[in-house]
């Protein structure tokens, strides 16, 4: 016998209510008026008698009905055949074996396997055991079984992985595994190095009360570890060539003594440098390699440290796109003097990853070839011919970006604005009020998101003259001047986007270029307008690599040499789970030549920290549930479950019958007469009173 909702059993405390009512029955009942207590007060009436329960049959009836109601709500169920099987098996043991990257420590993994095998050996003849391998996720290697041979074979084939640690996922899986053995004592044994980083998320996890959790620590006694925490790669251009400067961060933890390790750099598989690193007991050192010539195409590199007892984090991979540059075509008329576009040109080329390469083109020279390699076209206050407009339109529609600056030329000449995002109707002179400013900024837009915390950096700029523009349908106003006129607009065109600036970017009619916000604004304008996203140097194992939708028939090679053909499952394109350390490469069609994309994958940095947590801390925050929940009733068909759980209907029916009986009993005999006793109300003719 067990209960689905044992919390309702607390309702049995309500039995005190009828008892208290019976004890205090007279005090709470309707008093009967009596002419005088003159004689009664002379009689010895013991108080104890007054508080004695006088109507035991009625009390018993009421208490029994209440108890049955409580039991019905607690949903009792019979332990069925499946549960009886569980009862015959004395215990259910779930072995949670940590296979995170840190378990690859030379001393740890063998000890973990030994512990697991010992647990399997010590199982009783009727015990059942399951094996769950976990890192950040958990995988049921073997559900509950009595077959020791299978368990041993699975342990022999298990290896540490490349991912981080997350205990909560393992315990959740263990809980679900134990649903196959309801109502039997269960034990969850976590064999782990107890990394502190894996404890997150345990708070709030509920385990059944019958389950005990035991942690078997296999943490290494020598926790000294040297790891690579990250790299920084820069292209350094000198007079002759572009070189690659690589810098690595080497982390030392819990070393016995300071030591020196060698760090070797490999670029595209070739040794490209070696540096000794003096490491403290605990701390970080930067190691810089001599710049090496930048190979053509995409670069695959790695840094290798002298191996220690945890070898997995001694190698660090990185991947670099061939050339991370963003070509920008600046289309400006000849009469746009250099000093008019000076601030913008200089601001564009500042910054790297990507570096912006500006090519200035005069009107009439814009054609498809001029924009073939461009990421963005900057149209500086100049009208375009029909052919130029067609070329620019095709460029944007294909995914390029365009920034159209509308200044005095377009405004005063009444020329049509390129790409037609707005129509211009003269200029607004703000000399009288010493210039206007931005009045409304959409800081939720990616273009201005960087200014969300400090919009004053932009609203401080003054504009003396700007074009009066009327947005056309389909354009989105991102910013307005303080007089309500549009200042910045965005319009989608095919796969690309057009940003129209009414705010002057020169110093003759405004001071925006002199504001500190000018540089980040222009940088964001270029990156957002072109849709450029910087490729990371590396990702951590366990993450997902999202492939761009533009790639067709993608074939991905994994670090171990396997080929994957990820299928696009949604509009965002295909995604590849990164499970191995090393370089993943994506090709279009066939695996040959230079890959279209590469990504480097390294071990999670948290796995390099071998500091263990106290085994007891592992369960801090884990709640003990009263029951396994609805599944606690055990497996079986719906009909069987219903049969085992259907007692509540009988209990409820019986409670109703008892309540009916109580109603009849309470309204028969002297109880009924007592119930009809009423208090007389004085009246001239007297009031009929109750007949005792």
């Amino acid at each position, binding site marked *: 016998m067990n209960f689905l909702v044992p919390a309702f059993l607390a309702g049995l405390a309500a039995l005190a209510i009828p008892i208290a009512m019976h004890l205090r*029955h*007279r*005090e709470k*009942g309707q*008093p*009967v*008026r*009596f*002419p*005088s*207590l*003159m*004689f*009664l*007060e*002379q*009689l010895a*009436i013991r108080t104890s*008698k*007054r508080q004695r329960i*006088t*109507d035991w049959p009625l009390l018993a009836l009421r208490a029994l009905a209440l108890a049955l109601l409580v039991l019905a709500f607690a949903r009792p169920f019979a332990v069925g055949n499946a549960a009886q099987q569980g009862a015959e098996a004395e215990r259910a043991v779930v072995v949670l074996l940590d296979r995170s990257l840190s378990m690859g420590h030379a001393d740890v993994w063998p000890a973990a396997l030994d512990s697991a095998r010992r647990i399997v050996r010590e199982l009783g003849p009727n015990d059942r055991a399951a094996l769950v391998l976990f890192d950040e996720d958990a995988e049921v290697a073997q559900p509950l079984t009595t077959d020791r041979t299978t368990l041993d074979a699975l342990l022999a084939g298990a290896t540490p992985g490349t991912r981080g640690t997350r205990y909560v996922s393992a315990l959740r899986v263990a809980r679900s595994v134990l649903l196959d053995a309801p109502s039997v004592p269960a034990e969850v044994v976590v064999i782990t190095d107890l990394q502190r980083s894996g404890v997150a998320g345990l708070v709030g996890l509920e385990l059944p009360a019958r389950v005990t959790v035991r942690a078997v620590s296999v943490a290494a006694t020598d926790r000294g570890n040297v790891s690579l925490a990250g790299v920084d790669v820069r292209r350094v251009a000198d007079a002759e060539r572009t070189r690659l400067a690589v810098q690595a961060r080497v982390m030392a933890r819990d070393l016995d003594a300071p030591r020196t390790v060698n760090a070797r750099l490999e670029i595209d598989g070739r040794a490209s440098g070696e540096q000794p690193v003096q490491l403290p007991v605990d701390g970080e050192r930067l190691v810089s390699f001599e710049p090496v010539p930048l190979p053509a195409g995409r670069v695959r590199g790695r840094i290798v440290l002298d191996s220690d007892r945890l070898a997995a984090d001694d190698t660090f991979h990185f991947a670099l796109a061939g050339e991370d540059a963003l070509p920008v075509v600046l289309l400006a008329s000849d009469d746009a003097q250099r000093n008019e576009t000076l601030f913008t040109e200089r601001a564009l080329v500042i910054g790297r990853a990507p570096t912006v390469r500006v090519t200035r083109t005069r009107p009439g020279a814009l054609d498809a070839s001029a924009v073939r390699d461009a990421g963005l076209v900057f149209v500086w206050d100049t009208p375009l011919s029909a052919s130029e407009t067609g070329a620019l339109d095709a460029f944007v529609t294909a995914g390029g970006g365009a920034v159209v600056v509308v200044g005095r030329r377009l405004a005063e000449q009444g020329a049509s604005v390129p790409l037609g995002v707005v129509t211009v109707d003269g200029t607004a002179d703000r000399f009288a009020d010493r210039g206007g400013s931005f009045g409304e900024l959409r800081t939720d837009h990616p273009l201005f998101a960087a200014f969300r915390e400090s919009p004053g950096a932009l609203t401080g700029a003054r504009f003396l003259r700007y074009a009066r523009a009327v947005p056309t349908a389909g354009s989105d106003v991102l910013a307005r001047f303080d007089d309500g006129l549009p200042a910045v607009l965005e319009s989608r065109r095919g796969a690309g986007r057009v940003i129209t600036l009414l705010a002057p970017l020169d110093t003759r009619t405004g001071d925006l270029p002199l504001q500190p916000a000018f540089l980040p604004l222009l940088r964001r304008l270029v990156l957002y307008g072109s849709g450029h996203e910087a490729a990371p140097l590396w990702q951590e194992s366990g993450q997902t690599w999202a492939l761009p939708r533009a790639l067709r028939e993608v074939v991905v090679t994994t670090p171990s040499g396997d080929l994957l053909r990820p299928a696009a499952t949604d509009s965002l394109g295909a995604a590849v789970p990164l499970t191995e350390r090393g370089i993943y490469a994506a090709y279009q069609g066939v695996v040959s030549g230079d890959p279209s994309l590469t990504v480097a994958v390294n071990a999670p940095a948290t796995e390099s920290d071998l500091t263990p947590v106290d085994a007891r801390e592992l369960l801090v925050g884990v709640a003990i549930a009263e029951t396994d929940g609805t599944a606690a009733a055990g497996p079986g068909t719906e009909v069987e479950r219903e049969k085992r759980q259907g007692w509540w209907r009988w209990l409820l029916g019986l409670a109703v019958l008892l309540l009916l009986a109580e109603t009849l009993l309470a309204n028969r005999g*002297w*109880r009924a*007469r*007592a119930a009809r*006793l009423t*208090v*007389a109300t*004085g*009246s*001239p*003719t*007297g*009031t*009929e*009173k*109750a*007949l*005792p």
Partner: protein
Amino acid sequence: MALAPTAFLDPALLARISDLELLARTVVDGFMAGVHRSARKGSSLDFAEHRAYQPGDDLRRVDWRLFARTDRYYVKQYEADTNVSVWFALDTSASMDFTTHAVTKFDYARFLVASLAWLSKGQGDRVGLVTMGDDLGEVIPPSARHLQRILHTLARTPASGRGQLLNTIERVAHVTTRAGVVVVVSDCYEPADRLGRAIDTLRARGHDVIVFHPIDPGERELTFAAPLTIEDAESGLRLPLRPDELRAQYRDAFAAHRAALTARLAAARADYVPLDTAEPLDRALHAYLDLRAMRHPGR
């Protein structure tokens, strides 16, 4: 079906009659029909007035000459017949408002007072009324013309408040200036000795006193069966109790109180008449007429 005359004295039947005058007439007529001879024996040479003949009147006192003129029976009233003042002192405390059957003690008492007043008036007495609650309430001095006023007062007086029976009886003694008959109707919830002392003050004024004590059967027997909480009708005090366990002791205490009242009021030379409110009124009327006959034989 014709009802026996005494049937009109049944309290349950009387409770259906809202008009006290009609009730009193019904009671007295019914009662007198069963009395073959008028208890009134007094006579005088000082003619006062005529009044209508009532059954029981001495036929010798019928004015035959007036009968010859009017064809109706009248008897002669003499001054000596009307100079007995009868005070009805009615206890109106809340304890009187109790019953376990048809009529409350207070209703029974009102029927009794109304009937006795009607009877007294019919016999030529002057009747007055005093209501006794926490103080003297209505005081209607005795007069041959105050019967209607008495009946009206009885009809509109409720039983309420805490009774101060001893004080009010003593005050009645002060109010009454002329010796007569004082009829006390009360449930006598006072110690017998103290009540006797209060009656003594009435007796000291020369009054003949008769105490009617209406008793409800439930009050006497403590007939409640279920455990319950009872509340004092006057003080509001509550007492939880199990009547089964206390009934015998309570009966003994109540009987002892009655015995004490009987003894103490006898000592005060007052008549004490306990009345069961479930019984007809005739016993009370007999007792009253007996008293009148014994104490005022010439009137």
